């Protein structure tokens, strides 16, 4: 067994009770990742159930409006359940089934990963329990009901800051309680090895498709790929197949909340330091005693005090760049994309759009930028209305 390192980051820092389980997942994944039957089944589900490949859409209006690089949007928002999360949820639930597990548990922030896992579990006939911070349950009430419709049991998490990190804590605790029949379907490229690798592999279909689709449309690689980063699963998915193409700039957009200098932010690379938490060595927002900081973002999906270990490594070696984007910039980009292209992005994805709006005008017309629209924004409409001072009743 390797313990999954990306430079100094990664590893398997979990309680002894879980070590046998993470090794079991690792062994199973090593077996199935090269199994043509498994890959065929997964490809079939991607195509027939979640609607892949997702479109690579030429955003002509945005291109004209910004007057710089040519803009393409990778439309992960068009996937079944409305985000990239389904790629990983289907993959891990299929793995769980092959492993003989009958129950899956998962954490969720915005509810996208919870909905995706509940969906995959419903399809595969597995028991499903979702842990979601109480505050997030309130911010994303529709997604809670959606998960329940799909047959999942939703546990509001009342410990700590009642958001994503606490939902992860509670999932880890639950996994130590009941490990024999249960797989923890981690939602991002984080946690103990092998999860950062498994989730990245299932999400890497995004960059595989971008590459093929752009080759077909333009006959070349993009100049830059831009994606939002919380834990970082859609970003690593969009980056992965370009990592060796050094001429492609990879840009991750972190949630800076009220600003990187304001304590209310979640910009891990901008403000964090090396730590060991949630099973991995990576970068975390924390104090000098190693207490994890209570982070904040308007986006529940990016409201996480850490970042996946592979991103920490890509940052350290300078292969990818990570930039902070504030609530205000994200909300403005949310409205911009809706108005200009008729596409309402998830407020998470709007962070990537916001940064793209800053850099595209500075680029040449020969450049091509791909923005990963990781999810659709229907779930955020009420929150954006509230941000603008309009009270909607969902």
């Amino acid at each position, binding site marked *: 067994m390797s313990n999954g390192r990306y430079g100094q980051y990664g590893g398997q820092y*979990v309680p*002894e*009770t879980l070590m046998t389980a993470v090794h079991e997942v690792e062994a199973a994944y090593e077996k199935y990742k090269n199994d043509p039957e498994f890959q065929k089944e997964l490809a079939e589900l991607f195509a027939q159930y979640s609607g892949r490949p997702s479109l690579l859409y030429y955003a002509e209006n945005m291109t004209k409006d910004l007057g710089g690089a040519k803009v393409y949007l990778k439309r992960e928002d068009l996937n079944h359940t409305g985000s990239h999360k389904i790629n990983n949820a289907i993959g891990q639930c299929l793995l769980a089934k092959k492993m003989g597990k009958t129950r899956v548990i998962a954490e969720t922030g915005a509810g996208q990963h919870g909905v995706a896992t509940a969906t995959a579990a419903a399809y595969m006939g597995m028991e499903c329990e979702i842990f979601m911070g109480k505050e997030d349950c309130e911010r994303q009430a529709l997604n809670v009901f959606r998960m329940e419709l799909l047959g999942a049991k939703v546990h509001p998490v009342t410990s700590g800051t009642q958001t994503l990190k606490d939902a992860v*804590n509670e999932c880890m*605790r639950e996994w130590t*309680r009941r490990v024999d029949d249960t797989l923890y379907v981690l939602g991002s490229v984080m946690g103990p090895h092998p999860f950062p690798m498994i989730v990245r592999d299932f999400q890497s279909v995004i960059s595989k498709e971008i590459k093929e689709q752009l080759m077909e449309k333009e006959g070349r690689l993009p100049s830059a790929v831009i994606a939002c980063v919380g834990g970082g699963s859609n970003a690593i998915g969009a980056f992965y197949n370009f990592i060796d193409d050094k001429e492609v700039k990879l840009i991750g957009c972190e949630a800076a909340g009220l600003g990187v200098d304001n304590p209310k932010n979640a910009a891990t690379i901008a403000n964090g330091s*090396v730590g060991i*938490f949630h099973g991995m060595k990576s970068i975390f927002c*924390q104090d000098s*005693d190693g207490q994890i900081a209570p982070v904040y973002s308007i986006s529940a999906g990016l409201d996480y005090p850490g970042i996946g270990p592979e991103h920490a490594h890509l940052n350290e070696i300078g292969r990818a760049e990570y930039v902070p984007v504030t609530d205000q910039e994200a909300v403005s980009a949310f409205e911009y994309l809706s108005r200009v292209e008729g596409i309402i992005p998830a407020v998470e994805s709007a962070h990537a759009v916001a940064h793209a709006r800053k850099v595209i005008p500075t680029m040449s017309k020969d450049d091509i930028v791909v923005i990963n629209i990781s999810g659709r924004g229907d779930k955020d409409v009420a929150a954006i209305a509230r941000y603008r001072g309009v009270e909607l009743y969902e």
Partner: protein
Amino acid sequence: MSRVSDAFKNGKAFIPFVTAGDPTLDVTKEIVIEMEKRGADIIELGIPFSDPIAEGPVIQEANERALAAGCTIDKLFDMVKDLRKTVKVPIVYLTYINPIHTYGKEKFMNRCNECGIDGLIIPDLPYEEKGEIKDVCKAHNIDMISLIAPTSKERITMIAKEAEGYIYCVSSLGVTGVRSEITSDIGGMVELCREASNVPVAVGFGISTPEQAKNMAALSDGAIVGSAIVKMVAQYGKDVVPYIGDYVEAMKKAVIS
């Protein structure tokens, strides 16, 4: 043998745990003094952490109270240093790896030596990741106390072979907390440890009554109790000291009976 292992020489050991800084470090200090006086063989002090993933609700809440009351690593070390003027019993920290890592492992171990900390229990540092602090612990003569769990099975031998201080045998699946019944094969786990190591084995997780402590100690070298004590702190606050004293005395009596 280390000071920690030596503490098992007077028969079966009773090892109480308390979260440091709950309700205040001054009260923790009185609790530790009382625990030693009433028969504790080793005392485990929990360093409060924002995200204690191996803890059930009782100790989670204690962590939150301690942090809210302003407990920091430095203040805790200062308190322990002060305690060492009178308290002789081995004291070990239970801490997650991040506070050690971020405080600075070298600085942390130096302060352990300066203040009289004998060992460390780190629930999220499994065997495979021990390298993180193994050398620095060794250089400072601090015992790294290993945990084994009901899921450890064939891992037990590997873990026991490198054990120091005592082996913390986790009695049940799940997180810390009081349990009415312990169903794991504790005897089998202890036996595997003894085949591989001379280091004493103590059982923890779920123990609250003298009867449970007696049964667990009969199968091993001692019993560890955390949540039941932390619950008393939650109930009695700064007046908890005599209650914990009586409890420790009763539990020690039970394990050696």
